């Protein structure tokens, strides 16, 4: 019995292998031959979802094939990411990765159900959003240096949209670099945290630029610096943290970013095809308008560039998380 079972199993496996090999070859030539799904690990309506729907619409038009978005929210984006990691690597299930799934979460969660590097192949880096260091309008510091001077010896608080968000960890990064003592006050989403900042319940926040923009324009909160490597076009007078000449903040860069990935094992030819099509879509007028209104910078580029970037992110956040001691067992 055993031999027969084993023989059957071997034959079946061989069959599957052959089939897969054959299928992959066939797929690459006429990809996409059917509907493509982009998994979004957040609910409909959030920043990641809206972006994914923009890209999906563009790709649908480019390919003449339906591209749908599937929302699989839960467990701080890690649930949907784990499911995408286990999807069949045939190019028909893609994943909208972001700073959380492929930067912060691997550092924060000990029992993650996916490996950000081994389970995915990067396709293309789509956009990035800087975080902005904002204080209430009456806060007694006009610059980052003054802020540090005020904060020394005091226990200021910094708000965030939730523990483990890029907003939280940007604050932790600032805290560990400057050696300041600041208490983290988490809210559920920026929408709840910003009013607390306006009223001065919290002293500072490293908010995503789009969610802070309305209040910055209204003058209820004041930007001291942005966390990206370059200045933000929509706030030309606001310096970057890195350019200030403060030794502790040299090279400081913390951005929220988004990009497409596929499950590991996806045919490189298909990855190339998706990369080319997506680059086309995001350099188009419709997407550029959307990104500008939304305060995000369009990036694009090759799969290799995106892979290098992700590697850097994983290392950077692991370091921040270790120093801040926010790892979750």
């Amino acid at each position: 019995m055993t031999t027969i079972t084993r023989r059957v199993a071997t034959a079946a496996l061989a069959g599957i292998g052959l089939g897969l090999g054959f299928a992959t070859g066939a797929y690459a030539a006429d990809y996409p031959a059917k509907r493509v799904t982009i998994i979004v690990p957040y609910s409909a309506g959030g920043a990641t979802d809206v972006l994914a729907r923009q890209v999906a619409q563009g790709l649908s038009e480019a390919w003449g094939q339906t591209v749908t978005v599937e929302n699989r929210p839960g467990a701080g984006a890690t649930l949907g990411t784990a499911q995408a990691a286990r999807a069949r690597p045939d190019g028909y299930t893609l994943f909208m990765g972001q700073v959380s799934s492929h930067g912060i979460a691997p550092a924060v969660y000990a029992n993650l159900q996916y490996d950000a590097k081994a389970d995915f192949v990067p396709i293309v880096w789509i956009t990035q959003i800087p975080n902005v260091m904002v204080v209430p309008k009456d806060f007694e510091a006009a610059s980052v240096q003054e802020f540090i001077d005020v904060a020394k010896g005091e226990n200021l608080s910094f708000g965030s949209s939730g523990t483990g968000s890029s907003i939280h960890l940007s604050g932790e990064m600032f805290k560990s670099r400057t050696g300041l003592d600041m208490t983290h006050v988490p809210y559920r989403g920026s929408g709840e945290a910003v009013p607390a900042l306006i009223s001065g319940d919290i002293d500072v926040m490293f908010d995503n630029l789009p969610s802070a923009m309305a209040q910055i324009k209204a003058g209820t909160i004041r930007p001291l610096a942005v966390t990206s490597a370059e200045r933000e076009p929509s706030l030309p007078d606001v310096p970057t943290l890195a350019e200030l000449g403060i030794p502790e903040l040299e090279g400081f860069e913390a951005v929220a970013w988004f990009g497409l990935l596929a499950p590991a094992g996806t045919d490189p030819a298909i990855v190339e095809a998706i990369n080319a099509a997506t680059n086309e879509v995001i350099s188009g007028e419709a997407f550029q308008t959307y990104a500008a209104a939304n305060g995000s910078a369009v990036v694009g580029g090759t799969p290799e560039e995106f892979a290098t970037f992700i590697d850097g992110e994983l290392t950077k956040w692991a370091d921040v998380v270790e120093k801040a001691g926010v790892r979750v067992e």
Partner: protein
Amino acid sequence: MMDAISAGLGLFFTLQNFLAIGAGVMIGVTIGSIPGLTATMAVALALPFTFSLPPVTGILLLVGIYKGGIFGGSISAILIRAPGTPAAACTTLDGYPMARRGEAGKALEMALYASCIADVISNLALIFLAGMIASIALQFGAPEYFWLIAFSLTIVISISGSSLTKGLISGLVGVLLSTVGLDLVYGTQRLTFDNFNLMGGIGYIPLLIGLFAIPEVIEFYLQRTGHLEANKSDRTRVSWPEFRRSLPTIVRGSLIGVALGSVPGIGATAASFLSYGEARRASKHPETFGRGEIQGVAAAESGNNGVAGATLIPLLALGIPGDVVTAVILGAFMLQGLTPGPLMFQDNIDLIYALFAGMIVASVVLFVVGRFAIRHFARIADIPRHILIPMVLLFCVFGSYAVQNQMFDVVVMLAFGVLGFVMARVGMASAPLLIGFILGPLFEDNLRRSYLIANDAAVFIRSPICWFFIAATVLSLYVGLRKEMQSARLARQLAEKGQLAEKGSTV
């Protein structure tokens, strides 16, 4: 000012805008009436369609969906005891008993009247008092929220049904269940038992559907007594005296909705329960609540629709989204290159007036579409139960799966169905569980946030708003408990005299 108003009206009076409102409300009512598909989801999914529309048209489409969705939720709440949207959970308490009695048409009609009136009141608050209300809302920090939630939690007393003790247990179970998942501050796992699916907490919608709709399904298969009392559901109508009697309840519910809607983060579900609790407290016959009291439906539906217009107050006046729906609407504004907030009242005032005009029209459209919808939906109550109940079960499964596309949620829904059934059998009301589940995290978050901000207990009495809600909480506890004890004593006396044969009836 007049120029701005006429410019705004000029901007509004286009065929496209009317079509957008009509389509929005229709989509909202339909989606809202399907358990598991919420108004929030519908608004989010419609967002991409607004990119190509003019700003006013796009926003009005979303507003229409939102308003329609909140009313739509009451349809399935009344007819099959499965709240179409979370905010309609409270509507099941009296709406479904009315439907069982053959008064589905009447319950739906009252739900519509209450929704539309609340909608109008909410719009008026937005149009005339936005600036003032917004500046009060901005004074709500963590300690103020803490006391507001403490006050809201006292409604558990009013919705506990026949036994206050059992109601409190139910409420505490809800609070306990709400702590499952990742801890807000430290991110540690609580009560997840290393189950990956529980890391994000227990799903709100699966819990809701399971708790309310499934017990009916189980009951049906156990008893098979199955039909509704003879009903010509579309014939029963709300009479003028009934309407007049309910009007104060509706106005009170609307104001509660406006108040809770204008502070970010509380939401329509809490508002409807608070309105319900207040209506019961104000009633001369609180014992009729939970057994098909038409004022119960009026209270619940005015409470949740009162929130709809008011959530736009912090959004338009301050640029702060109070819930997911307004966050999506904020997204729609930003994509059009507009930034809601004080500046918008300076730079784009014509657009604001156009929106106001559109919102008033949306209330009227909701009434018309609602009339049409209930005439047809009410027939569902005529479907024989042996056909209807399996369909309900199907919708429950579909609805819980649809939220996150996770099979785990279906399991959660079924588990809560069994729990709800057991609770009903032992005479324990399930509404307090839901309230505990919704308000528990807000209570805890704001308690901990208050300490993080100040590291000093004095923060809890830092402002007049704190004091106001402390007083309200104490008063509510005192009045509520006294009333419950009185009615318990009365019931005991009656029982001793042998005049009360009925036993064990519950909400």
